[in-house]
């Protein structure tokens, strides 16, 4: 499989990453080799298998609904590159957020 210019653009967009010209070339070349290896997966017949999401053997792990007062807030905020008071400041978002 090849990664053409359109697909590469789409992957950069999904990843929110801008590659340099050189990086784009390297990636197209390197990824092509990798995809040749990976493509053997498409031959597997796996209709019946559900698919795992962890090698963990745990089930039903919970915490109780008890408040743990947090003490690291200021250390967390101190890491932010741009702040205004206790808010973290970012570029104007295109639309009102609240998507959930």
């Amino acid at each position, binding site marked *: *499989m090849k*990664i053409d210019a359109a*697909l*590469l653009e*789409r*992957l*950069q967009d*999904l*990843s*929110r*990453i*801008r*590659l*340099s010209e050189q*990086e784009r070339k*390297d*990636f197209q070349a*390197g*990824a092509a*080799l*990798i*995809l040749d*290896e*990976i*493509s*053997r*997966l*498409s031959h*597997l017949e*796996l209709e019946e*298998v*559900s*698919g*795992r*999401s*962890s*090698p*963990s*053997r*745990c089930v039903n*792990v919970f*915490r109780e609904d008890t408040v743990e007062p947090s003490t*690291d807030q200021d*250390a*967390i905020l*101190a*890491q*932010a*590159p*741009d702040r205004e008071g206790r808010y*973290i400041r*970012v*570029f*104007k*978002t*295109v639309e009102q957020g609240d998507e959930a």
Partner: protein
Amino acid sequence: MKELEGIGPLALGRLIQSRAISCVEATRHSLEVIQRREHQCSAFLKVTGEQALTSAQGVQKRLDAGDESLSPLAGVPMVLSDSVCVKGTATTCGSKMLEGFLSPYSSTLWERLQAGGAVLLGKTALDEFALGISGESCAFGPARNPWDTRLASEGGAVAVSCGEAFYAVGSDGFVALRRSAPFCGVSSLRPTYGTVSRYGLVAGTSSLEQAGVVGRTILDCAQVLALIQGRDSRDSTTVDGPMLDWNTSLRGLRIGMPESYLDVELDLDIRQAVLAASKQLETLGASLVPVELPLADDLLPVYYVMACGEISSNLARYDGIRYGYSAKDAGDLMELYRQSRGRALGSRVKEHILLGNLFLSGDGGEDYHQKALQAWELILQGFEDVFTRCDMILSPTAPRTVGEKPGDLLELYRQSIFTAPASLAGLPAVTIPCGLDAKGIPMGFQLTGKPFGEGELIAVGHGYQSATDFHLRIPGEVGE
């Protein structure tokens, strides 16, 4: 202090407890070795010498006050790879993206070590976001294998190899830690998935990575593992680890030799060294049996697709807003994302993120990730079957002593061949040095065990190290 060279953490712990040496003296010793050797091997991203001495004093006070919570390794100087969060200190995970980031909290594994009286010398170099096999991709320059400083290596393995630290704990993310240890002439132990908390380990491939330990001997690793393993209420995937009982006799143990590994192209020296090791293990009473790995041909692609998918998701949080690098010159939100990530992440990381998004999105026309998840299920089941036929699996640690070239995606992929199965199936593994190649670089073998089979792996490794001395060699210093 020459007399401390080559001794293990437990032996040093005993000296400290018997007051033959103080915690501060032990720390000074390590700082001296660091001073002497860092220019050559660059194991550290940051040496925190002042803090180490202060904490050594604190541990000594606790010792003198008879603090019962101290471990047998109290006062022993050690290192963490820079993927492990320690409150208030820099944690970069080998990436420019996290340059200047001070972790606001501590990982569980560091809290446990700290409670036992560990003295942290600093943070060691690793592949950017632990994504590599040899430490090569560290954004601040890789650590150097002290046996041949032209070779990149994982910093913790280097620090232990040179005697800068008595043990190292880091991320067995891709495979750099496990692969690097024997190439530096020291041992490593990766426990069963979920037995050491990942809370506070910068996440790359969540379901494949585990904390790992590097020590001169496999017993050193076991002593350390005993301090950090066990269920953690902050990591939902954790369980209690097994009793680390390595007094198992090697007699009657069945060591599986995977048939698919016979076809792997590997250095002749490595092939011979591993064969010699297998003979040694037979001499010690184990028997060798041929086994077949589940989906042997597809295991590596499955591993790779899973790893890329999780990396792309886990590394999406580095967006220039809450912490880390932020492109100051971006003009809008989209530019902030694309420039920050484009500049501060290394090429290899970016390539894997792009690949991960390709596998997850199905944009390439194939539903790679779904396929991989399903195959993974089969592989996990398949290993249960394998371990009815043998007790552990023997393999080289890597096909070549030389790591990947920067930017060589395929080489990175191929060199994971032996270490990927344990990562994929959450199995414990040890790597043990077993000789020097023609160029004088140590080589190693790996034993992959059944879930919670750490004890047996340690027993076999210990049996082997009791009969050999490959792990006792200390690399010479340049100009010595």
